[in-house]
């Protein structure tokens, strides 16, 4: 009842303060208590609040003084309440209240008896006009009143201090109390914001304010009330039916809210909620001193930080086990110990005054909202919140500004809209998801799937504006001409120089990728210069076979098959594609609209970009469009009969020869290769036992490959995308040579892109070991230059004009000797800085052989070992450079020796120029086992040097016998 009194009281005050409003308001309240009237009154109150802030204190005191007296009057005289209620004569409600008042004496006893019925009570209270006397809650209030008047006054004061955290005594309150009451009312009106009848409205207000004030005297447990509140929230039908019993009520609602509309539903929900909240709040206040209720779903939170935002308070909290409740069971949330953000609306915040280190209980039904971008959930609907431990109780009560402890958040930027405003934003999102890329890629961003489309839509200065999604089929590097400091755009590709002049010295190389789009179109993208040639492997590993996005690329040139036959030989090796192609006419659906792969494209675009232009997709696996190298055996390659194509294989390098007098890697290199497939006997398919391969200057050899080629050890290498032309193998642009190792854990250089497992690689034919010694083809009339053969014959002649000898250091084998000044015969070795008293004598000798081949002149340049075995070593030692007789040499048998075919002249007669060589695979064996028994023990092996002629230090030509 005290609440009711206060309510009236506040209205009275209002009448006093806003005389201009009074008529208006009461008329409206009686006639049409619409939301507008509420709002207008609220506005008045806000104006009032403003005026409080701005006007002198005296005025406030004066007005509030009157108010206080009103309160006292009202609280003290019950009859006044009744009369005022009757005087208002709004409806039967007041009668109900007063009539219940008359029953008051019995209520103390009834209170106990009625407890089981309590759950229904909140409903009854908010709907008291149904006149169900049993349910009227008045009983308690009246009993409260009976207990003491002081309580009411204290309550009043307490409420004020709750709202304003002002610890001033009730007598000094006047400034605050009217404002408090007013604000309470305003907020209630505001939150009502609806057209309920004035009676209903006021009744609710009554309930709330009554609950807020009559608090401590009630002795019911919170759980009781919470339960009842829950029942309120969970039984949607009942109140609706009851409401509909009041004709004017429903009529007004229908007029305002569309029937079945959202607003109507929310209105219903919130009126239910409000009642529940009111009851709960009332009880929670009364129960603050008693033990907290243990209910499932209750949040026990410690406040860490509080900020105010748009009149709401946002508290960063941490889940906590309540102290003294160690038995706290089955509370899943407390175990998460996660932080949550809790939002309190103005009313709750005003009551709760959350401050750091407070412990707050939040009872269900709260809501949890997980927001993108926030690690913690946000708790909404925190109406049922209760502070169980106040860390700053003293501080709050002693300092007047305690309420404002929450930092106020600056207003959010009005430019920051909350999404959804842009029309069609959603549809764009869903259409972006439709962009399918090869059916395999999970990239949902919008990339152009077609190279041609992207190139057609050229942007400024030849740059391709769109990102294009492609599959990197091949990664390779090309040498950059030293002189070409001009950009790649002007030089129109670095490839012209490759065939013209091998000026690609010093080895600056440019990284290139051959890419293919989902329509089958190819492009070569020329990227950045590689700081080191060996970086190529890293890029092969990163990119090859992956779906990548090209961005920031420029078009360099459109090339045709005729202009870049090498490039197209690589493209042809990738044709037809492994996957069905998309139909260019139908971009949307690729699964059904596939076209059979036609002939390979006849043109393609050369593009240029930077390292960042190629961005691999997230997927680590190779794209299904990727066509990896298929390794073939050399036999298969040689016998395939296709004129010109690309192939990949692993082979052992038997012999290396540079054509110019330069090191490997600078200029053309010839390698003679073999593999197990060539070595094995297949009488039905006879084939060469070795094959020559030319490494063009346009093929970049990495340092590890160069090292291996320059080392005396035999090496196996992997050749990728080598070209077979007219039975000759060629490594040119786009071919990649790597050291091949069967060790899967081994160095990166072993087939770095797709390392096979050990077992797999061992089962491959090229992983078999070569037979020892390596077999070579016997010399035949069909022999071609730059190939190897095994040769044996009888010396029939000696080319005296090319024969000479020179001394070499007997320690290190170097021929860089200086004559000592004192003695004529002594030398000084420049290389090993030693005195050479007994120099080895080196001899160059070319002989004519007669072999099994008839009508054929064979001229063979012999190696030192063979020469030594032929010549009489004793004679050599004894005569001391005096020369040898030709007769001693003629008729000697030579061979079988391995020989490299230098020249083949077929006209007028077959004439073959050969050079005896030392096979790499045999080299170790030869020195160890001394295959040629006649070789002198002191001879040194010079074969690591290039085998071309060396300038002799001194000449000691063979002498004819006198």
């Amino acid at each position, binding site marked *: 009842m005290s609440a009711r009194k206060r309510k009236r009281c506040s209205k009275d005050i209002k009448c006093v303060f806003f005389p201009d409003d009074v008529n208006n308001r009461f008329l409206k309240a009686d006639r049409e208590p619409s939301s507008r009237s509420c709002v207008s009154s609220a506005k008045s109150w806000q104006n009032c609040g403003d005026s409080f802030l701005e006007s002198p204190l005296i005025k406030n005191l004066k007005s509030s003084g009157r108010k206080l007296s009103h309160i006292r009057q009202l609280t003290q005289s019950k009859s006044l309440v009744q009369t005022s209620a009757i005087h208002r004569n709004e409806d039967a409600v007041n009668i109900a209240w007063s009539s219940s008042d008359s029953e008051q004496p019995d209520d103390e006893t009834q209170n106990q008896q009625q407890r089981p019925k309590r759950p229904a009570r909140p409903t009854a209270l908010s709907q008291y006009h149904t006149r169900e006397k049993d349910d009227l809650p008045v009983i308690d209030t009246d009993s409260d009143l009976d207990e003491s008047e002081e309580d009411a006054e204290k309550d009043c004061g307490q409420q004020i201090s709750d709202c304003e955290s002002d610890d001033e005594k009730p007598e000094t309150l006047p400034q605050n109390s009217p404002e408090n009451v007013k604000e309470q009312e305003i907020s209630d009106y*505001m*939150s*009502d*914001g*609806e057209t309920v009848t004035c009676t209903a409205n006021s009744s609710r207000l009554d309930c709330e304010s009554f609950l807020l004030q009559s608090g401590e005297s009630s002795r019911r447990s919170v759980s009781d009330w919470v339960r009842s509140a829950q029942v309120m929230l969970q039984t949607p039908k009942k109140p609706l039916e009851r409401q509909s019993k009041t004709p004017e009520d429903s009529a007004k609602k229908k007029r*305002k*809210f*569309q029937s079945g*509309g*959202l*607003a*109507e*539903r*929310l*209105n219903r*929900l*919130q009126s239910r*909620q409000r009642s529940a909240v009111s009851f709960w709040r009332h009880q929670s206040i009364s129960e603050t001193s008693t033990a907290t209720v243990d209910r499932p779903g209750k949040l026990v939170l410690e406040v860490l930080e509080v*900020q105010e*935002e*748009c*009149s*709401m308070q*946002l508290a960063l909290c941490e889940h906590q086990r309540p102290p003294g409740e160690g038995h706290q069971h089955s509370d899943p949330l407390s175990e998460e110990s996660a932080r949550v*953000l809790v*939002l309190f*609306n*103005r009313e709750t915040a005003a009551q709760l005054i959350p401050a750091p280190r407070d412990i707050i209980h939040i009872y269900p039904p709260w*809501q949890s*909202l*997980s*927001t*993108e*971008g*926030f690690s913690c959930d*946000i708790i*909404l*609907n925190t109406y049922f919140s209760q502070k169980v431990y106040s860390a700053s109780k003293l501080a709050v009560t002693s300092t007047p500004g305690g309420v404002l402890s929450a*930092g*106020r*958040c*600056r*207003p*959010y930027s*009005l*430019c*920051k*809209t*909350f*999404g*959804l*405003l*842009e*029309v069609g934003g*959603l549809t764009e999102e869903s259409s972006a998801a439709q962009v399918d890329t090869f059916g395999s890629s999970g990239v949902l961003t919008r990339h152009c799937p077609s190279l041609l489309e992207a190139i057609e839509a050229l942007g400024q200065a030849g740059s391709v504006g769109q990102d294009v999604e492609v599959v990197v089929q091949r990664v390779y590097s090309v040498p950059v001409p030293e002189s070409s400091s001009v950009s790649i755009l002007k030089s129109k590709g670095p490839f012209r120089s490759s065939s013209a002049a091998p000026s690609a010295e010093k080895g600056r190389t440019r990284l290139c990728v051959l890419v293919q789009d989902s329509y089958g179109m190819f492009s070569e993208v020329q990227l950045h210069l590689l700081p080191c040639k060996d970086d190529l492997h890293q890029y092969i590993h990163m990119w090859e076979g992956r779906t990548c996005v090209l961005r920031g690329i420029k078009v360099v040139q459109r090339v045709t098959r005729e202009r870049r036959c090498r490039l197209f030989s690589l493209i042809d090796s990738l044709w037809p594609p492994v996957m069905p192609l998309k139909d260019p006419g139908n971009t949307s659906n690729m699964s059904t609209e596939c076209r059979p792969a036609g002939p390979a494209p006849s043109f393609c675009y050369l593009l240029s970009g930077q390292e960042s232009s190629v961005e691999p997709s997230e997927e680590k696996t190779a794209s299904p469009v990727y066509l990896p190298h298929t390794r073939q055996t050399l036999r298969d390659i040689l016998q395939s009969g296709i004129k010109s194509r690309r192939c990949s294989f692993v082979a052992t390098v038997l012999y290396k020869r540079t054509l110019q007098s330069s090191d490997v890697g600078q200029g053309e290199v010839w390698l003679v290769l073999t593999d197990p497939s060539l070595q094995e006997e297949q009488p039905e398919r006879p084939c060469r036992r070795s094959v020559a391969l030319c490494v063009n200057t346009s093929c970049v050899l990495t340092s590890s490959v160069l090292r291996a080629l320059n080392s005396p050890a035999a090496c196996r290498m992997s050749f990728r995308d080598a070209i077979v032309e007219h039975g000759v193998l060629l490594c040119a642009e786009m071919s990649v040579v790597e050291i091949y190792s069967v060790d899967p854990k081994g160095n990166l250089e072993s087939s770095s892109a797709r390392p096979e497992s050990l077992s797999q690689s061992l089962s491959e034919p090229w992983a078999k070991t070569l037979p020892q010694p390596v077999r070579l083809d016997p010399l035949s009339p069909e022999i071609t230059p730059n190939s190897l053969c095994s040769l044996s014959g009888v010396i029939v002649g000696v080319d005296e004009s090319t024969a000479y000898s020179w001394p070499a250091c007997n320690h290190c084998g170097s021929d860089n000797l200086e004559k000592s000044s004192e003695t004529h015969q002594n030398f000084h070795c420049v290389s090993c800085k030693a005195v050479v008293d007994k120099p080895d004598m080196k001899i160059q000798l070319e002989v004519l052989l007669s072999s099994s081949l008839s009508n054929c002149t064979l001229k063979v340049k012999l190696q030192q070992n063979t020469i030594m075995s032929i010549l009489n070593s004793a004679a050599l030692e004894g005569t001391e450079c005096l020369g040898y007789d030709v007769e001693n040499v003629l008729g000697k048998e030579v061979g079988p020796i391995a020989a490299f075919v230098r020249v083949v002249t077929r006209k007028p007669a077959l004439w073959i120029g050969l050079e005896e060589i030392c096979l790499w695979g045999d080299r170790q064996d030869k020195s160890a086992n001394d295959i040629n028994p006649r070789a002198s023990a002191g001879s040194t092996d010079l074969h690591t040097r290039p085998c071309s002629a060396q300038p002799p230090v001194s000449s000691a030509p063979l002498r004819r016998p006198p």
Partner: protein
Amino acid sequence: MYSFLPAVAEQLFKDIQKTYQETSQIPDDLLLALKFVFGSCALQALDLVDQRSVTCVSSPSGRKAFQVMGGSGRLYTCFMSCHFCPCPAFAHTVLRRNEGPLCKHILAVYLCQAMGVTQQESVSDQQMSMLLSGTEIL
């Protein structure tokens, strides 16, 4: 201090949009959450949504704006790229006192967008320019 309310609002709208697309309903708890975050605005905005009061006006030039028919029949023009409404509540509650994030008209725009019940209307470029500059008397 970081402002959390916009993110909360945005998430609410997203949830409403998603749920409404799937079920053509807005469940009670979302309505209550709306009420909790936006206060009394929520009910009024929902009423505007019920009345289908929000229209998206577009002109051939590609400019767009929202028009919300208020309870009194007055048209309020709200913009797409920022929060502004010429209604008194916006001036008072949002701009002056910073007590709420939105007025009921803008909230109604968001809800209509989320539910896909925004009316569409085309106007001429001239009308649009008058509309946006506030010189049009409707």
